């Protein structure tokens, strides 16, 4: 059944459908509607779980970790300063191998203060050991929550999905809400080992010697690496159950493309429109949408971009002193492929600035003219 709703509401719907027993969160714009929606449903009885209203995001994540260790599904939502405050606990979640699922609404990080879309908040957390997805719209956000539980619970790793402030979180679109029965079939009740067992008391997160620490990190890396395969399989199963899927990356009109636009999140949606215009003009341009960011799907990307001449990565984020973060990751992924393409970094949409189809067309035309590599990012400003 389709409903007209915001991306935030779509996320809340997914959490309800996943029968998450413990939600711990702290409100922050532009994530608050998720928190409010779940609270409303808790009050009306439609949500079977508990909404824990913690005093901070740090505590919210700590609560999720503890609850997850008792073997239950957990959820939190946050944004911007909230995820920054959570940082320490993100490492704990990954280290404790808890399949917590979190929705992060991408909002710029202060200072200066602002509320607008920017992916730096979640990308700053790329080394915390979390699975990361970037969602294009409300439907994908809803579906990714459901998929994230299944993936996280298989890999014993926490997973976050990001949806951009306002462009996805607050835009209303028709969203297909799956039946509860379908979701239950896809996502059976959780059967995690009870790692907090009152009958067998133990001390979690003890001090370990160096070799043991290394061992656990190595195990986490091995598990994380397997997520690429797990995520692809889960997406496939999802498609079978619900009739739609996304892949861990999505190639659009790539077969004959010489120039490839690479981007993630809502810009991918706009790029589809730009692509149509560019194709009509006769340009052999394609699009690669990045959906899974951690683990970074290196092999799939290498395979997909084989033989391409030029790539323009559009980043709604900047690692100051480095460049667009997706571009950095992409360049690293391609460095060992033969005749790897020239890769250009375009910074567009920072701080919530608009990336409309014309901007993307400009980028495509610009990159087609480039013949020499450029290491530094190219900023797209208003003309």
């Amino acid at each position, binding site marked *: 059944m389709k409903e007209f709703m915001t991306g935030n509401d779509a996320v809340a719907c997914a959490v309800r459908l996943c029968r998450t027993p413990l939600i711990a969160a702290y409100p922050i714009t532009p994530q608050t509607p998720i928190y409010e929606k779940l609270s409303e449903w808790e009050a009306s009885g439609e949500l079977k779980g508990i909404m824990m209203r913690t005093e901070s995001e740090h505590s919210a994540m700590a609560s999720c970790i503890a609850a997850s260790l008792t073997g239950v599904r957990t959820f939190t939502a946050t944004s911007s300063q909230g995820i920054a405050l959570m940082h320490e606990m993100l490492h704990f979640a990954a*280290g*404790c191998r808890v399949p917590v699922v979190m929705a992060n609404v991408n909002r710029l990080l202060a200072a200066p203060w602002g509320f607008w879309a920017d992916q730096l908040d979640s990308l700053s957390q790329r080394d915390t050991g979390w699975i990361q997805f970037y969602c294009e719209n409300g439907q994908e956000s809803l579906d990714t929550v459901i998929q994230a539980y299944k993936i996280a619970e298989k890999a014993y790793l926490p997973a976050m999905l990001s949806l951009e402030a306002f462009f996805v979180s607050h835009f209303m679109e028709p969203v297909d809400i799956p039946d509860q029965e379908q979701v239950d079939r896809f996502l059976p009740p959780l059967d995690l080992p009870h790692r907090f067992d009152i009958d067998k008391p133990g001390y979690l997160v*003890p001090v370990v010697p160096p070799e043991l620490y290394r061992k656990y990190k190595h195990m986490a890396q091995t598990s994380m690496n397997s997520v690429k395969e797990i995520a692809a399989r889960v997406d496939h199963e999802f498609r079978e159950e619900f009739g739609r899927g996304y892949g861990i990356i999505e190639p659009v009109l790539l077969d004959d493309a010489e120039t490839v636009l690479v981007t993630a999140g809502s810009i991918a949606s706009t790029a589809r429109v730009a692509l149509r215009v560019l194709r009509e003009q006769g340009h052999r341009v394609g699009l690669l949408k990045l959906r899974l960011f951690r683990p970074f799907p290196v092999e799939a990307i290498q395979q997909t971009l084989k033989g391409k001449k030029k790539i323009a990565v559009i980043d709604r984020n900047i690692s100051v002193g480095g460049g667009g973060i997706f571009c950095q990751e992409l360049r690293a992924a391609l460095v060992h492929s033969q005749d790897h393409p020239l890769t250009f970094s375009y910074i567009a949409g920072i701080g919530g600035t608009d990336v409309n189809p014309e901007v993307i067309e400009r980028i495509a035309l610009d990159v087609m003219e480039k013949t020499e590599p450029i290491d530094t990012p190219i900023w797209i400003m208003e003309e």
Partner: protein
Amino acid sequence: MDMEIKNDFSSELVIPISYGSSEVIETGKWGFEKPETAFMTAPCQEVCPAGNAIPRFLYLAGEERYEEALETILKENPFPGVCGRVCFHPCEKDCHRGQYDEVVSINTMERYVFDVTSDHHPDIHPMSTLSSKQVAVVGSGPAGLSAAYFLGLLGYQVTLFEARKELGGVMRWGIPEYRLPKSILTKEIKRILQLSIDVKKGVRMGKEISFEELDQFDAVFLSPGAGLNLPLGIEGEDLKKVWRGRDLLDQLNSGDKIRIGKEIIVIGGGNTAMDVARSALRLGSKVTVAYRRTRGEMPAIQDEIREAEEEGVRFEFLIQPIKIRLLKNRRVRVKFQQMRIRGRDQSNRPKAIPIKGEYLTLEADGLITAVGEGVDLSWIPGTLSKNNLIDVSSSLTTPYPKIFAGGDAIDQPRTIVTAIASGKRAAISIDLHLRGWLYDDVFSKIRVGNKGALSMEAYLSGRNGGNWSEPKDTISYPQLNTFFFEHSKRIEMRKLDRNKVLKGFSEVNLGFTSDEARKASSRCFSCGTCNYCHNCYFFCPEGAISLDPLHQTKTVDLDHCKGCGTCAKVCPRYVVLMKELS
């Protein structure tokens, strides 16, 4: 590293869980400071002349461990039942809680501890091996009985001489029944006499026994009290209608039937004046108290003045009697000189001086004088006296080497508790004298704060080896962490119904109910004394503190205490202090 960690990588757990203990990691080695429990002296305790361990007994009372509370008081003061009723309780004036909201009802709690344990008969026995040394105590008022009690605890053979037929001195003869029922006093004396004190009643000094005969004792404590009424020194004071305050109280306390007139004037502003004024009310008289200074200068206990006012005593201030005449209608007419306050006298009290030519005349059916009491020194060698008192040093020695003195007969405030304190001080002095130790060295170690009180418990703790630990410092208000306290009202005790007060000599103050007592004692901040609030235990991030309130121990696991100082910060009563490791 000897830690048991589950290393089963094939397991689904994939995280380290220690089923052993992390105790092997001695985090205590990381610290630079360690917590120390250091009890401090509370201001109530410091200002109490008897050095009563007030926070301690209130803690025990709060736990409803009343027998232990009683035994705690008895370590420093043999008269909780008396002091709980008639003490001027300076402890409450200095109570730190007064700076936070309202002072704790210490006085009434002392009374409650005595009252509620009326079936409990603590075993009072000497704290040390018996000595063959004999000590005489002359006079059985609060000073004499206290000296006998503490000397008995120290193992001496005490002979107590009392001129009257019953023991108690001023507590028996000078305080009216409505303030201190005789049954209370009797019970306290009975407890003291468990110490096999040889009591000689009806033995008057200079009559049945001479001063010289006291020489057979190894030491002597003189506490004859101040039983002589001081005269007004004016015309007419020998008239039949003029009563002497102490004599009147004595007669009332002896059970004599007394008739005084319908209208009575009481001269004086001290406790005796208040006692006779209120007694006269109970005999059916209308009473006017005439005092030569103002209310602010009255030496009586403030509560007594207030209660006298409430009961209907009238006050005339700034008048001094100069002449008393008997009128034909058998009434007396008193001529008063009008006074005013100007400057201060030798003892720094505001001085009353006459206003030339201004007089006031009052008439009444009788007059009671209560302008102070003197000491009968007729049986004492002149070299022992000075300014009509017995001459003593700070250690209560007299010019005669083995003679000591205390109570109202020496130069000190005339209150029950200061008399008790002098009895204790003299007992310690006598012990030191008989053991050949120096007074001052020991007194400086066993002092309770800096206001003159001594601790018998501290004295006993070091007496065997002759070694005493350093005295505790007094805790100041800012040292308390009042964040942990909640505001609450002071608990006031119930009083006898207004209609019944003047119908007889029934006790006016009725003490606490058990509920009130629990509330009142739990209001104590326990300044400087651990009351097992468990803050240190709860807040210790290492779980390195264990508390056992029952056995009153607090243990810090120093192998695991990192010295973070949280316990010291969260202690509401400044008991935990951080000490740097050398």
